[in-house]
């Protein structure tokens, strides 16, 4: 990430990482998560799910910062994020 001015506490801040879980067959391909992910982690996949929609896939999974925006925005309860284990053990 690029900052205009480096925050004074930047060296002390631990950026969390999330693990994305997608319930593919529940998705109706609305694309809300793809559009509004602030880190552009998601993209609609070219494959179909059981209902004939294109569910998202995490093309840039490492960039996820566990903001959980997609989880709250998803109208289908089809995507959610958990905090990556190793991050929880790192001292802040």
């Amino acid at each position: 990430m690029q900052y205009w001015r480096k925050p004074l506490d930047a060296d002390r801040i631990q950026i969390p990482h999330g693990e994305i879980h997608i319930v593919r067959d529940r998705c109706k391909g609305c694309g809300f998560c793809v559009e509004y992910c602030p880190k552009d982690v998601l993209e609609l996949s070219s494959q179909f799910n059981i209902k004939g929609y294109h569910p998202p896939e995490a093309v840039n999974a490492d960039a996820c910062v566990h903001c959980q925006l997609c989880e709250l925005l998803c109208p289908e309860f089809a995507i959610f994020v958990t905090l990556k284990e190793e991050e929880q053990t790192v001292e802040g």
Partner: protein
Amino acid sequence: MKKNAGNVPEHPMENLLRMDRIPHIWCSTCGIGTAVSCFIQALQNFDYPLDKIAVVSGIGCSGRIAGYIKLDSFHTTHGRAIPFATGLKLANPELKVIVFSGDGDLVSIGGNHLIHAARRNMDITVFCVNNFIYAMTGGQCAPTTPTDANSSTSPYGNFDHPFNIPLLVGSCGATYVARWTALHIRRLTRSMQEALEKPGFSFVEIIAPCSTLYARRNRLGTGLDLMKFYHDNSVIQHGAPLESLDIQFQKKIIVGKFIDKKRPTFLEAWDQYLGKKLGDKFISAEKGIRAA
């Protein structure tokens, strides 16, 4: 990772959803699902015993909400969600009663119930999904359809003037009035939580896209295009004068928290007034309800 019956990872909201009914019926890019997701998040943040919360809906696309929430919930007849909720609250004042329904149900067919519940300051929380149209019945013109918008009963555009819902409930005496769009997920969740915590008649209007009828009939693209429209055209203005909150077709939408005040609720007013008038003969509302 916890898996559920279908061997898919368990979503953290599943404890409050009737999973046997999911996937729900709402169209792709409809905004109602997002409003429900925010509601569940608000419920999870809200510190109240879940067996003391009831959700009531009326009829329509948004009227299906109560059926998907795994709490005591009821799907009432058209427009009658508020009177049903009023009865629930008065019969059991310990309950937290939430009405979650659409504009066609609450403001149009149940409009009279809405204004009187606000006037009496009935201690219930109302969430109104406003998608500007009667969606489930085929996109007829509603009293919330903006002037100029096309609907199946206004094929040349609507010549009528729509309701300004925050002004309507605010002028009737609601103690909490806010409006957000389905895109303001964090603010909407916080607002829902505030409304749940607020004693008296609290009201949150949620502007949400109807992709299949409103967006399609008006050639506005999909629900995602409407979300982008909200992103570019909504203005947050807390405490904005209620008269300024009119919604015009595809013009800027003012959102925010407009009213947050204190006023005796229906049961408090009952106790205060009759306690003074009746002296020794007075039985408090709560005691009277317990005895009955």
